[in-house]
């Protein structure tokens, strides 16, 4: 149908005046419009947050308890996640298989778990299934039975899952670096727990956590998708309106903010493993910190996205890794800054040295304005894409709720990122990174890199994989 036109072009591609050697100009942008989510509160204190999106008949409903992994007692890491996981494994009315069947008969999947500052139950369904999905969410949150047999089943699965995860050099290095950076502090442990802590958790620990934190005045119900605030409120009222708020106010959670200070690098020896995992971790700012947005830009410049300085240097220029990333994990009362990459064993010393140089370089001088501008646009773009699916949108709102940030921040975030200056970025790096005590952990076949790494870090400690204890601040059994 277009044959004539294409033959002409094909025959005479150079006749047109169009300069094909340069990209065409950019048209004026069309605005990104983000509406503020609607927030209402039920009489029992449950916050109901609604982000309506017209289009496809799909809704994500997420119930967020604003307490999670940070409440794990020091000997019982993994408690909040195990508790949340068991919500769907039996209620007063239904067994675990019956719950899974009921959820999946609605077309969705009932997921639950815990992370920092949050425990959640979430489901995405087509609009007609929403009332039944919400009733199911309410049932598992309020009437979970925590049967002993289900706890044992979940414990075995968690232990088997950990035995796999801890054989992955990237995962092991990351978990060990968290512990190394925070010592006995709360942020040193993992939401998944350790083999020893999972073995210790008893049913009464779970029941107590549930009684303490699962209450309507510590919860937010987030809807994202094809539903208006009025319908959402009435659904919330019918499913969760009778959920009683306890007479006593919410107890304040314990948070041990120990930081390890300067620690010697650690090598976890994994003989025969074909690639090393490298992790560097340090404490960082909380989500509510005044320099949060400069921090996000600084972190993206260093190691966020494909075109960060770390990825440019380590992957694109040197071919040392499939990908390196730096993450600013800001939480309600603090944060964790971490850098992670995997590389062939013999490249570890080079990867570590280059990473350290790049971190320093961000603090040395303001980045060129065009580099900062590009990274800011990259952040704005990835933020906008978080609003494209109901699941991502609900998750983004749930995260604000968990961190105690007003959800209207969604409408301001793009302007705030856009306003960050190169000077603020360098100031952030100078304030937080120049003297950061980065805990370095490498998990890999140490024969490939130990001597070279020891030249740079004479104080490094080597721990055989079998002797690693993630519950110990020194990472070794019997310490």
């Amino acid at each position, binding site marked *: 149908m277009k044959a004539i036109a294409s033959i002409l072009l094909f025959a005479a591609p150079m006749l047109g005046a169009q300069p094909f050697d340069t990209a065409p100009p950019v048209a004026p942008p069309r605005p990104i419009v983000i509406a503020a989510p609607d927030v209402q509160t039920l009489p029992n204190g449950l916050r109901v947050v609604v982000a309506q999106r017209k289009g496809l008949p799909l809704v994500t409903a997420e119930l967020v308890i604003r307490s999670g992994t940070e409440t794990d007692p020091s000997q019982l890491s993994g408690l909040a996640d195990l508790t949340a996981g068991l919500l769907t494994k039996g209620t007063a009315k239904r067994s675990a298989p019956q719950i899974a069947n009921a959820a*999946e008969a609605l077309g969705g999947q009932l997921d639950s778990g815990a992370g920092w500052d949050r425990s959640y139950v979430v489901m995405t369904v087509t609009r007609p299934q929403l009332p039944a999905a919400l009733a199911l969410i309410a049932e598992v949150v309020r009437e979970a039975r925590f049967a002993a047999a289900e706890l044992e089943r979940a414990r075995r699965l968690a232990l088997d899952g950990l035995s796999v995860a801890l054989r992955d050099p990237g995962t092991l290095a990351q978990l060990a670096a968290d512990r190394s950076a925070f010592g006995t502090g709360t942020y040193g442990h993992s939401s998944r727990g350790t083999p020893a802590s999972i073995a210790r958790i008893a049913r009464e620990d779970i029941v107590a956590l549930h009684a303490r934190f699962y209450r309507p005045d510590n919860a937010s119900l987030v809807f994202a998708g094809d539903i208006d605030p009025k319908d959402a409120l009435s659904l919330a009222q019918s499913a969760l309106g009778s959920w009683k708020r306890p007479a006593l106010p919410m107890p304040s959670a314990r948070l041990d903010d120990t930081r390890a200070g300067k620690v010697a690098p650690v090598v976890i020896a994994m003989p025969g493993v074909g690639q090393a995992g490298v992790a560097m971790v340090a404490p960082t700012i909380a989500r509510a910190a005044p320099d949060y947005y400069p921090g996000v830009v600084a972190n993206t410049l260093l190691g966020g996205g*494909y075109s960060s300085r770390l990825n440019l240097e380590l992957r694109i220029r040197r071919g040392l890794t499939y990908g390196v990333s730096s993450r600013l994990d800001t939480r309600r009362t603090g944060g964790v800054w971490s850098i992670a990459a995997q590389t062939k064993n013999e490249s570890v010393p080079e990867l570590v040295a280059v990473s350290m140089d790049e971190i320093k370089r961000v603090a040395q001088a303001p980045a060129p304005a065009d580099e900062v501008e590009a990274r800011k646009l990259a952040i704005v773009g990835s933020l906008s894409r978080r609003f494209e699916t109901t699941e991502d949108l609900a998750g983004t709102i749930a995260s604000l709720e968990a961190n105690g940030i007003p959800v209207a921040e969604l409408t301001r975030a793009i302007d705030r990122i856009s306003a960050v200056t190169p000077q603020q970025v360098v100031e952030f790096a100078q304030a937080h990174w120049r003297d950061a005590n980065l805990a370095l952990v490498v998990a890999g076949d140490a024969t490939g890199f130990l001597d070279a790494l020891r030249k740079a870090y004479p104080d490094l400690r080597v721990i055989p994989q079998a002797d690693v204890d993630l519950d110990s601040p020194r990472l070794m059994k019997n310490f």
Partner: protein
Amino acid sequence: MLRFAALLLCAVTLAHAAAPAPPSIPPLEFRERVLGNGLRVVTLEDHSSPTVSVQVWYEVGGKNDPAGRSGFAHLFEHLMFKSTKYLKAEQFDRMTEDVGGNNNASTREDVTNYFDVVPSNHLERLLWAEAERMSNLDVIDANFKSERAVVQEEYRESVLANPYGRFHEAIAPSSYAVHPYRQGVIGNIDQLNAASLDDVRAFHSTFYRPDNAILIITGDFDQKEVDGWIDKYFAGIPRPASPIPRVTAVEPPRTRDASYRETGPNVPLPAVAITWLGPSARSPDAAALHVAAALLGNGESSRVNQALVYRGQIAQKASFGADLNVDSGLLIAYAIAAKGVAPATLAKALRAEIERLAKTTVPAAELAKVKLQLLTQALNERQTPLGKGNALGDAIVYRGGARYVNTDLDELMAVTAADVQRVLRKYLIDAKQVSIEYAQDTTAKAPGK
């Protein structure tokens, strides 16, 4: 690299699911045309966000790796982000990520797809850039070598560092006798090292041509404007006179059962996979196989999860997938053991579930459950311009036409309990199986301390 991609969407309602009835799904109102040089173009306007997805799918993949160059199609995919006549290396990132978009690409056995998402005011530039790398790739040696090293790190990450990487890589070569699907996609370090810049040039001129490509544009654009840009940037790319080499190997039916054993240096729990040969994704049996796979392996309530993980507590993870390709595919039952359980126990339990489904009529409510799951998953996928483009690309490559995007779910919804039994008998019960057991290597004394 299991793919459940061919589950596509259409305008249907489920008549027989649990009340209330699921919603009617609007069809994707796409437009198709073919340029004079053979380039297939699919466009779908959607103004729900000010972004647009540009995708170019080339019908070349791991099955087209040159002899002695296992992993080459995937290595080549990485090189498409390097320099061209008028683009610097990584300029795609400047034109996408740096303006608020992103880009990526993937290589599968049958297809390599490049996908960009940009603010819609950047659409014309992206069309120019995609046309440019279709026409004028010009990789320099330094970039070739550093990117090859990146791909080798990708190999180490997915195959060597991942405790189950070697296991996943063992499935294809154990399962196919003659079809080049047997070599997988990621390749190996030695054959990647053997690749040269001459191979890169030859591969581009052989496979990266308009008559082997599909351009898919979805999102915020004006149809008339975009039609003009497509003509301007793509219509002048010449169609080579040489034919496109196609894989003609046909995987023969298996004549016997076989079993293999694979080991790794770092395997915490043993695992097993059992495979059967499946038909092409274009087979009339594909829909029934996808429903059967969902009954067995989709979600927590699925049969193998309930039997092996929940009730039997013999597995840490268990699944079943219908991994259908353009040519013959694989039906794969898979489990990682619970601590202390032998692979043979897992294999027996997986087979028992398959036999039970094949021999006993599936209850209507269970059939309705998986259909609504498949519908909801498909709906989830098509929320974004990128997801809509993926659905269209999968329909074209795997099913043989974009139109299937609007009819395939009808087919899934029409699958009966008898269909499920029939295809399980045909492809599994009455056919030969290959089993692959995976465990810790206890013989090699590893170095290190």
